């Protein structure tokens, strides 16, 4: 009866932005990204990729409440690097990783089909 529409978990409402940044003032070179209408699928992926960057000092994500469809990603980097740059590089790396996965997978399926 009170259940919100299921499409609200992935469709942006009017005026909602997909991603927004706030600077974390407590420590230098830290930012908090709020991504709307996404969940652990993307949050965990971005966090782990950020952790593999040697210039990232801190990377963590959380879903503040399971009934609100967004996640919050906090990134802190070394002084010569900005969190925005770090996230942007992480996304680029993930895209190339998934492209490599796609090509290898398609090759493997094609080999399998030809072998039959």
């Amino acid at each position, binding site marked *: 009866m009170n259940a919100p529409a*299921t499409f609200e978990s992935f469709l942006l409402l009017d005026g909602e932005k997909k991603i927004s940044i706030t600077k974390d003032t407590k420590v230098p070179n830290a930012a908090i990204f709020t991504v709307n209408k996404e969940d652990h*699928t993307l949050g965990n992926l971005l966090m*782990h990729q950020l952790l593999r*960057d040697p210039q990232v000092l801190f990377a963590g994500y959380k879903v503040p409440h399971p009934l609100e469809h967004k996640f919050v990603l906090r990134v802190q980097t070394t002084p010569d690097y900005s969190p925005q740059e770090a996230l942007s590089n992480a996304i680029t*790396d993930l895209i*190339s*990783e998934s492209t490599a996965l796609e090509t*290898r997978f398609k090759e493997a399926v*094609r080999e399998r089909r030809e072998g039959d």
Partner: protein
Amino acid sequence: MEEGLVSLGEYSISNVHSRDCPGTYPGRNDAWDLDRFKQLFRVEVVSLEDDALVFDMIGIDASIANAFRRILLAEVPTMAVEKVFVHNNTSLIQDEVLAHRLGLIPIKADPRLFEFPPQRTEEGDKWPSSTPEHMLEFVLKVRCTHAPAPGGAGRRGTAAEPYVNSKVVSGDMEWIPIGDQAKTLSDVGPVKNDILIAKLRPGQEIHVRMVCVKGVGKDHAKFSPVATASYRLLPDITLLEPVVGERADRLAKCFSTGVIKVVGNGDSRRAEVGDTRKDSCSREVLRHEDLKNCVQLSRVRNHFICEHPSNVGWVSNA
């Protein structure tokens, strides 16, 4: 303890998380590198059938494998019945229950040829009238009657088959092409023709028109293309000491068949590790006092065995 193995102990599981982020080990450069990833990463398709796919991903991190699994379950679009217009339903199945069942029938149609329906609003759906790029239409019209008796005499059929059309199955759904769909699409219909929708008796009829749209699993589970998407890590067994004779037989019995092979005959027969892939990791060996110290059970952290039984008939269009 080897770095790439998750060890399964008697009371706990240790060494679970991967420690390949830069900074864990001083002096080692663990920064992510696309070329190094491409060198180590492999995909092997183990079995590929129309309704199930089993493949291995080796050299990948858990976060990506899990994201892959979550996306397959929730974000890969398919077509499914969304609106059911009931013209006549005199069966015992209520309209809404019938509509629910029709929605769950997997439809064989390539969702890439369709677009998502226009955004719904809270007030009500504004459905455009039959647009070929958004929807597929089906009609289900079944009427149950008494079977004619053999020989033509009388009105009732035989005891074995007294009724005609008493079972409404998914094969009874008829595709009605809209616009020029008949030219652009072929082989459209439910994936399996023998899914039971309803049971009827003489005099009862179901006449409904269904509209299928493209959707994702996040919206409703009927749109999920996989029956389930799961992965497990490859089990790994190391024998810490030679196990011979009758102990070897008992060790082989602790695991699933084929995991531990007993080689040789007589008192010097030895246990050897066979195909660890078949192991279900029940850790039964840890229940035997004399056997538990001669094996090391673990899992390979970056070797994912992914099993995806699908319910849309096409597993992968490469």
